[in-house]
């Protein structure tokens, strides 16, 4: 009896792990506008809408996160943020998030740009790639589950791979005004 239960539990675990290995090699042809599906501000016509959380559809897939890691280099995020240690831009490895650590905050940062140097990438990076980068940026400070984060480096960096980076706990103090604290 207990053996059968074990098998059932194991099968359920395996099923749960499936999203991790999901790979989308061909994304749908993009539309013109970036930013659909993400609420960029609290101002809305008519009644004030409840701000809905935007779960990142790519955060469960190890493949997407590793794609995000490649895109992070291709789009030259490394130029300012280095490999997480920061430089011209703020570091992404630590617990300090000036504009929030939630996926939609990071998405907004990339799409809208931020004062003092962060350019807006609206229209420059396709939607699906944006979300992959967001997932990777969160993986850098250990915000993603370990089985999804990249487990090794492709290059000879001194940094630990994301999967063995301890999770930082960003305090919710630096949330931009108008956004509710969780």
């Amino acid at each position, binding site marked *: 009896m207990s053996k059968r239960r074990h098998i059932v539990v194991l099968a359920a675990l395996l099923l749960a792990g499936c999203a991790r290995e999901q790979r989308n090699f061909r*994304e*749908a*042809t*993009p539309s*013109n506008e970036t930013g659909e599906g993400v609420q960029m501000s609290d101002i809305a016509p008519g009644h004030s809408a409840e701000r809905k959380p935007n779960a990142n559809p790519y955060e469960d897939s190890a493949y997407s996160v590793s794609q995000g890691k*490649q*895109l992070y*280099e*291709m*789009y*030259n995020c490394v130029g300012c943020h280095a490999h997480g240690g920061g430089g011209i831009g703020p570091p992404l490895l630590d617990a300090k998030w000036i504009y929030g650590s939630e996926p939609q905050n990071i998405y907004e940062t990339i799409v809208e740009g931020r004062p003092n140097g962060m350019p807006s990438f609206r*229209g*420059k*990076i*396709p939607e*699906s*790639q944006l979300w992959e980068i967001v997932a990777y940026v969160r993986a850098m400070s250990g915000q993603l589950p370990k089985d999804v984060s990249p487990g090794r480096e492709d290059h000879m960096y001194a940094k630990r791979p994301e999967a063995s980076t301890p999770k930082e706990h960003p305090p919710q103090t630096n949330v931009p005004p108008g956004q509710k604290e969780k």
Partner: protein
Amino acid sequence: MKRRSSFWLVVLCCGLACLVSCHGNQSALDSKGLQAARIERLWWLMFSIVVAVYLVVLGWFGTAVLRSRTRQSVQEIPPQVNVEADRRMTVVVAWAIGLTVVLLFVMLTASVRTGHAIANLSSKNPVTIDVIGHQWWWEVRYEATQADQTVVTANEIHVPVGQPVVIKTSSVDVIHSFWAPNLHGKRDLIPGYQNAVWLQADQPGTYRGQCAEFCGHQHAHMAFFVVAEPLEKFNAWLAQQVSTPAPPSDQVSKQGEQVFLSHTCVMCHTVRGNGSGGKLGPDLTHIASRMTIAAGTLPNNRGNLAGWILDSQSIKPGNKMPPNPLKPDDLNALLEYLETLK
């Protein structure tokens, strides 16, 4: 008997294949330049010495094996000292050592002389070309006294025939090596250090070159072409490369220019005259005039270009260009625009 003849057939085929591969697009044994000719001569000298020594040694070895076979009972006789035979042996070994030393000195002298000869090429006012290695393509810049006369292109080096040109090499990331075997030996491209190499092509033609220092994932797909052409043709090419391409005239290529400027392309690439200034990827000002894309990976045509833009990672995995899922209309317009950049 049948087995033996098929063995010799295989040997013959392999030998022929080796000989065939000596002629062609990228071969040090098909020299088309002054220096490559010296290197080729040195190669043949060393090759013939080595082959001769090899045959002599094998011949002696074979004789020894055969003779020992005829006198199998030799082990049963207790070893005897034959003074006369010992003396003869000593003389033979002494001669062999002497000959080896002489041959090594011949090769050393030939090598040093060749080294001097290929380093002696120079000229008063040569065409100066900067070749900068990137993972995994070659940036090529033609220096000029005026900044706006500088030509920037990629993976294609045009040189005038019969004139020494100087190539200044450097790298932005890792060590690469510049090697066009039909023209010269290798020269490393070292980050943070400028090297120079003189070249002269004696016959017009297109010579393939290749990165000769392992430099990462796509090292094998890092080729370039040296196009040697008569001086007038070279000057015409240079003048055309200096010019800024005419702005797009028809509706579709105008839209293509907008796609170029408003999408991902502009973040890394430059097309002079349209306001773009990306420096991470190859300069695309005259991309339509080039023979290949992606450092000699694919012939430059519309289909290949489309595939490259949409998903270059499936063509050259690991390269630094992200996939660009463009809308069909946009892609078409962009290709139209790129094809106007002659």
